[in-house]
C-alpha cells in the first residue's frame, strides 16, 4: 500500500514536469506583453523595452525557463508582474474560496446525485428513471452562466433568501459562508450532479445484474439494503472515478461561477492573469490546478481499495 502510494506520487512527477514545460511554452508563444499592460496606454516603445528588460522578458526562453524551474525547486512561485506581490501569497489567498465552494459543490452533488442515480437504476425504465435522466441531460445542456443567472434571479432577487454575490469565509460564521456559497455551489453542481447521477445509474444497472445481488435477495434482505449495502459499494469505483475526472470540469465551471457570483477564487485569478499575461501567476495557477487534479485523482485511486477490497496495491 505504502509502496503503491509512493509509486503513484512518483509517477505524478513526470506529469507535472510535462505540464510545466507545456504551460511555459504555451505562454511564451501567446501574443501579449506584460510590459505593455504595466506601462499603460501612453507608453513609448523605448519605455516598453526598458520594462521588458527589467522583467527579464528579453532573456532567452531557456534561461527564463531554467530561472523559473530553479525558483520552483526552491519553493518560490515568483512575483506577479503586475502587482509585484508574491504569487504564493496571492494564490494562498484565493485558494480558500475556491476550495470551500468546490467542497460544498462536491458534497451537494454526491448527496443528491448518488441517491438519484441509485433510484433511477432501481426503477429502470420507469418515470423516475426518466425524470432523473432528463434532469441529468438538462444539466449538461445549459451553459453554467445561464444557470447562475437563473438561480440569482429566483433565489436572490425574487425570493431574497440569499445575497446576490460575494464570499465570506467559514471562519466568519458558517451562516454567512453558507448563504453566499449556496448559489454558486448549486450552479456548479448541476453539471456535476448530471455527471454523477448518470454514472451512478449506469454503474448500478450493471451491478444490479450481478449474481451477488440475486444472492442477497435470495437471503431475504430488504431492498434498500440490497441497493445501498450490496450494490452501491460495488458500483463505487466508476462513480469515484467520475468524481475525480469530473473535477476538471468543476475547475472549468469555477472560472465562470466565480465571475457570476463575484467570488475571489483562483478561477477568476487565472483568467485575469491569462488576459493580462501575468506569466508567473498563470504558471503557478495552472501548475496548482493541475496538481490539485492529480492529487484528487490520486486520492480517488487510493480510495478504490477502501470500497473494493479486491484492489490491493
Amino acid at each position, binding site marked *: 500500500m505504502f509502496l503503491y502510494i509512493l509509486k503513484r506520487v512518483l509517477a505524478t512527477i513526470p506529469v507535472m514536469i510535462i505540464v510545466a514545460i507545456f504551460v511555459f511554452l504555451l505562454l511564451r508563444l501567446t*501574443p501579449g506583453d506584460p510590459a*505593455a*499592460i504595466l*506601462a499603460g*496606454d501612453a507608453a513609448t516603445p523605448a519605455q516598453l523595452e*526598458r520594462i521588458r528588460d527589467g522583467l527579464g522578458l528579453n532573456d532567452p526562453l531557456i534561461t527564463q525557463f531554467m530561472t523559473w524551474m530553479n525558483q520552483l525547486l526552491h519553493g518560490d512561485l515568483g512575483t*506577479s508582474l503586475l502587482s509585484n*506581490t508574491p504569487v504564493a501569497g496571492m494564490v494562498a489567498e484565493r485558494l480558500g474560496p475556491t476550495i470551500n465552494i468546490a467542497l460544498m459543490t462536491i458534497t451537494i452533488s454526491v448527496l443528491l446525485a448518488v441517491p438519484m442515480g441509485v433510484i433511477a437504476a432501481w426503477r429502470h425504465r420507469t418515470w423516475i428513471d426518466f425524470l432523473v435522466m432528463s434532469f441529468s441531460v438538462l444539466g449538461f445542456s445549459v451553459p453554467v452562466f445561464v444557470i447562475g443567472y437563473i438561480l440569482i434571479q429566483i433565489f436572490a432577487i425574487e425570493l431574497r433568501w440569499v445575497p446576490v454575490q460575494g464570499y465570506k469565509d467559514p471562519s466568519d460564521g458558517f451562516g454567512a459562508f453558507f448563504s453566499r456559497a449556496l448559489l454558486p455551489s448549486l450552479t456548479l453542481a448541476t453539471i456535476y450532479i448530471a455527471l454523477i447521477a448518470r454514472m451512478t445509474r449506469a454503474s448500478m444497472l450493471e451491478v444490479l445484474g450481478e449474481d451477488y445481488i440475486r444472492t442477497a435477495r435470495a437471503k431475504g434482505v430488504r431492498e434498500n439494503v440490497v441497493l445501498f449495502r450490496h450494490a452501491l459499494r460495488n458500483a463505487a469505483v466508476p462513480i469515484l472515478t467520475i468524481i475525480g475526472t469530473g473535477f476538471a470540469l468543476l475547475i472549468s465551471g469555477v472560472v465562470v461561477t*466565480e465571475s457570476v457570483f*463575484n467570488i475571489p477564487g483562483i478561477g477568476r485569478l487565472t483568467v485575469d492573469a491569462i488576459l493580462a499575461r501575468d506569466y508567473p501567476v498563470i504558471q503557478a495557477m495552472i501548475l496548482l490546478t493541475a496538481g490539485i487534479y492529480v492529487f484528487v485523482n490520486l486520492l480517488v485511486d487510493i480510495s478504490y481499495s477502501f470500497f473494493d477490497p479486491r484492489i490491493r496495491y
Partner: protein
Amino acid sequence: QENETTVTAVMHSGLRVLDPVITTAHITRDHGYMIYDVLTAVDDKFAPQPQMASWEISEDGLSYTFTLRDGLMFHDGAPVTGADVVASLKRWGKKDSGGQLIFDVTESLESTDEKTVVWRLSKQFGPLLDVISKQSAVPPFIMPARVAETSADETITEYVGSGPFVFNESEYKPGVNVTYEKFDDYVPRSEPASWMAGGKVVNVDKVIWTTMPDALTALNALSAGEIDYLEQVQIDLMPIVGGNPDVIVEKRDELGYVTIGRPNHLLPPFDNKLIRQAAMAALDQESMLATMQGDPEYYNVCGAIFGCSTPLGDEAGSEVLTSGANVDTAKALLKEAGYDGTPIVLMAPTDVISLINQPVVAAQALREAGFEVDMQSMDWQSVVQRRAQQQPVSEGGWNLFFTNWIVPEVSDPLINVMANGRGDEAWFGWPTDPEIEKLRADFVAAGDMAAQKEVALEIQEHVMDNVNYIMMGEYIIPQARRTTIQNMLPSPVPVFWNMTKEDE
C-alpha cells in the same frame, strides 16, 4: 469602534498595479488619489490651484518656487519635506510625457529647505502648472523620497503617501479588493473641494473597492444593498435599478470620455491621407455612440479633438464625422486615392466591454463605403501587444484600432498623446507630422489662454485634414449609488472625500 462607516464601492476594474507612476491605468490613478496628495491640482474650471503647496513664479517665468503648507505628514508619521517632493517629481518626470517635456528644459529642481522647492527652467514653459496639476493620466503624486528613488522602470514596493486615506496592505487582494482607511492626521485645506483641488475632507472610516467581473451581478448587488456605489453602469442595464427608490443613477461629471479610432500611418492603405479621409467619412459618430450607449442622454456627437466642453475644444472641420456616414464622399475619396482593396486589419478586443462595440460598428460602416475589412478578434492584451508592432500586416502589423480616453486626457495638445507627430517616437500609429510638431511647439510658447486657443484651433483643423486619428465622439458613463451615499463630488476621477454615508 462603534458606528464605523464603511463604503463598499465597485470600481470599473480591479486594482493590480499599485505604482501610479509606472502605469497610466485609471484604476491605479484613482488609487493614487486615495493615498497620495499632489502639489497642485486643477479645479472644475481646469485652473491649477494650490494643494500641498503654493507657488510663486519669477518675473522671467524661468523659476518656480513651491512652498509646502503646514501639517503635511506621511502615513508612517514622517513629515513631508522638500526632498520628498523633488524625488517624486523627478521620478514622475521620467515617465510622464508632459513631465518629460518640462524636464527637457529643466535647469535644476532642488529643495532649498524642509518646506521649499525651487524649479529652474532654461526656457519658458507656459503650461508647467497645468501639466503638474493635471488629474490624468499620470499626476505627480508625492511619495517619501526613499520610495520615489526607485527606478522609474521598476514598480515601487512600499505604499506610503500623505493623502487622505491609508492603504491597508494586509487586506489587499490584487484584482479583487482594496481597503482604505481614513488617515486621521490628514489636514485638509480649508477651501471647498472642487475636482482634485480644495479640502479633501473625509467623512467615512473605511472605503473598500471591489471588482465585479459581471456587470449584471454588480447592479443586482447594488440593488440588494450589498454594495454602496457602482462607478460605471451600462446604460442598457439602467432599467434594472430604475424602479428601486434606494438607488440613484447619475452622471458624476459632464466631461466623460472620448472614443477614438487610430489608423496606422506607416502601412498601406492608411499611409495615404486620402484613404484616411475616406475612412473618416465612412464612419458615423452617431451610430457608433448609439450602439455603445443606447441613450442619447449619455453621448454627445462631438468633433472637437480636445473635447467639446474644454477650454480648447473646437469642432472646426469635423462635419464629415458628425453628419452621419458620408458613403458617397468616402467612395469618391477611395476612388481618387486608387484604393486597391488592401484589407484593413481592424483589431477588435473581445474582453474589454467599453471597447467591444466600436470595431464591430466600424467594420460594417467601412465595408459599406467600399473598404475591405479584416476584423480580427483578440483579447485586449493581444491588441496591446500587436498595436506596438510596426511591421507589415503579413508580419503581425495592423491598420486600425479603437480606444477610449477620459476627456482631461485629450484636452490639450501636450496631454493628448495622439497629437504627437514624431514618427517612431509617437504613440502607436506613428504619424510623422512635422506640421503638428511645430504647432505643439507654438502651443508651449504661447503666452496666454487666448494664444493657446488659437494654436489649438489650428491643430484641430490640421488633425481633421490629416486624420492623425478619428474622433468618434464623447460619452458619459453614469454611476449608481445607494441613496445613503451623499455629497459625492462631481469629478472626472471618482473621489471618496467629501462623501457621507447615512445609516440605512
